[in-house]
């Protein structure tokens, strides 16, 4: 039986770990605290200590728990499956340890993974989120994305990701997915976003050379890095799916969080081509850049809806609804003007 902890929440996590680690004795959990970052899952860090084989063992761990409703509502267990499949693949991810769907333990599904060294980059409030290591971080950022595109998408076949049963027209799967979210969550229709969707449907991109694992939210702020520029973990895989690898590139260079501010885009794209073994189609990338604005608009709409309905009152949801919604509609206007939509 675990030793009693001070905090009831810590005690519940200790109970769970003791259940999953029958070889461990005297499991205790301490320093359980919620940490900022990620609007889609609640993230906590904690310290676990136990006895095993006559020795004291301890580890810093991360717990990710599903919220009631959020920006993204992935299939429960999906992110755990993705971390598990990508561990050791060359794409840096934390080692996932235990996934749990039974709400009896912590009310909602959750999973536990190892804590990784490094820190996230702040998107706002600083001109240099990488403390002088922008060149090395940018280099690794693009190489890692190329490595992800080079993976065999079949390694995630058990994760039941969106797109895993599709062989062509990934653009249509994704556009239909995000349009449906807008249809469901939009209280007041946004004609700018609907205009972009019409254009995207009228001028679809070619299919990718092969289906790829798409992170779905690959950007500054969603990885951990060290002072030498090493990226130690790519995080936040809730929007992972199978699709066109250009989707991740377009998302990574969205002006709201673009890596382009810190690393020359052309160099980054060349690194991606080298690591992925794929040739970049610039025209298709332009399609995905406009698509990114629609996807972002859908995300902000969901955040607005979940805050308004009271399902999730995280401050970040209201803030993105106010600020990011306008940002991406304005970006759509710029991109549509470039396409001659305004004459």
């Amino acid at each position, binding site marked *: 039986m675990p030793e009693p902890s001070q905090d009831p929440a810590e005690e519940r996590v200790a109970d769970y770990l003791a259940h999953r680690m029958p070889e461990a004795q005297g499991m205790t959990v301490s320093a359980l605290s919620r940490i900022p970052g990620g609007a889609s899952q609640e993230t906590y860090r904690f310290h676990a200590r136990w006895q095993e084989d006559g020795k004291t063992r301890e580890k810093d761990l991360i717990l990710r728990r599903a919220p009631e409703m959020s920006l993204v509502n992935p299939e429960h267990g999906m992110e755990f499956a993705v971390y598990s499949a990508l561990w050791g693949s060359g794409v840096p991810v934390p080692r996932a340890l235990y996934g749990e769907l039974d709400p009896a333990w912590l009310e909602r599904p959750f999973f536990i993974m190892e804590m990784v060294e490094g820190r996230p980059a702040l998107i706002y409030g600083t001109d240099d989120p990488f403390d002088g290591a922008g060149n090395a971080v940018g280099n690794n950022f693009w190489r890692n994305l190329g490595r992800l595109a080079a993976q065999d998408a079949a390694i995630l076949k058990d994760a039941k990701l969106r797109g895993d049963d599709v062989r062509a027209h990934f653009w249509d799967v994704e556009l239909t997915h995000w349009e449906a979210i807008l249809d469901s969550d939009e209280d007041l*229709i946004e004609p700018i976003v609907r205009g972009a969707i019409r254009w995207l449907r009228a001028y679809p991109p070619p299919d990718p050379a092969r289906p790829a694992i798409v992170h779905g939210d690959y950007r500054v702020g969603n990885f951990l890095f060290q002072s030498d520029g090493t990226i130690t973990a790519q995080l936040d895989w809730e929007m992972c799916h199978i699709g066109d690898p250009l989707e991740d590139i377009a998302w990574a260079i969205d002006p709201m969080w673009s890596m382009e501010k810190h690393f020359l885009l052309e160099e980054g794209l060349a690194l991606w081509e080298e690591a992925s073994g794929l040739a970049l189609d610039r025209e298709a990338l332009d399609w995905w850049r406009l698509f990114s604005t629609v996807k972002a608009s859908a995300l902000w709409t969901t955040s607005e809806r979940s805050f308004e309905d009271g399902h999730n009152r995280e401050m*970040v949801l209201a803030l993105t609804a106010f600020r990011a919604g*306008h940002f991406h509609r304005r970006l759509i206007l710029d991109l549509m*003007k470039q396409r001659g939509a305004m004459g």
Partner: protein
Amino acid sequence: MKLRPGTVIQGIEETLRDRIAPLLADQPFAANDLRMALSLLAIVRLGRDDEVSLKVEENRRLREIFTEAAGSVGDPGLAGRLREAGASSDPGLGIGELDAETGRLRKLLVELHDLVDRRDDEQAKDISQSIWRALRDIEMPRAARA
């Protein structure tokens, strides 16, 4: 002197920033929440003054488009609805009333825009471009000012 709601919100912001925030120095998650809450309060305070006028202006602009396009759409049913909407007026100045009316007008605009984008003639192209320019003019003042 009349105490205005905006001043009250500003006072709340100052209290949270000057008295509460220093107490959260060792609680990074709560401190981060408070920073975002302060940003939200400022957005709400600065946005409330012209919230009604922006909605009224949007509705006026959409009606203008409908009146101009009504004679060019071909479809008699849609043309009639465009004329009716173009001649309509806001039911009141409450935010809920204005939002409901904006929702009604925007749906019609999307229908009109979809129809002209499917056509391949110069008149349709002109209407489509005119709609995009109007959408730009409506969107630009909607930026959160904080």
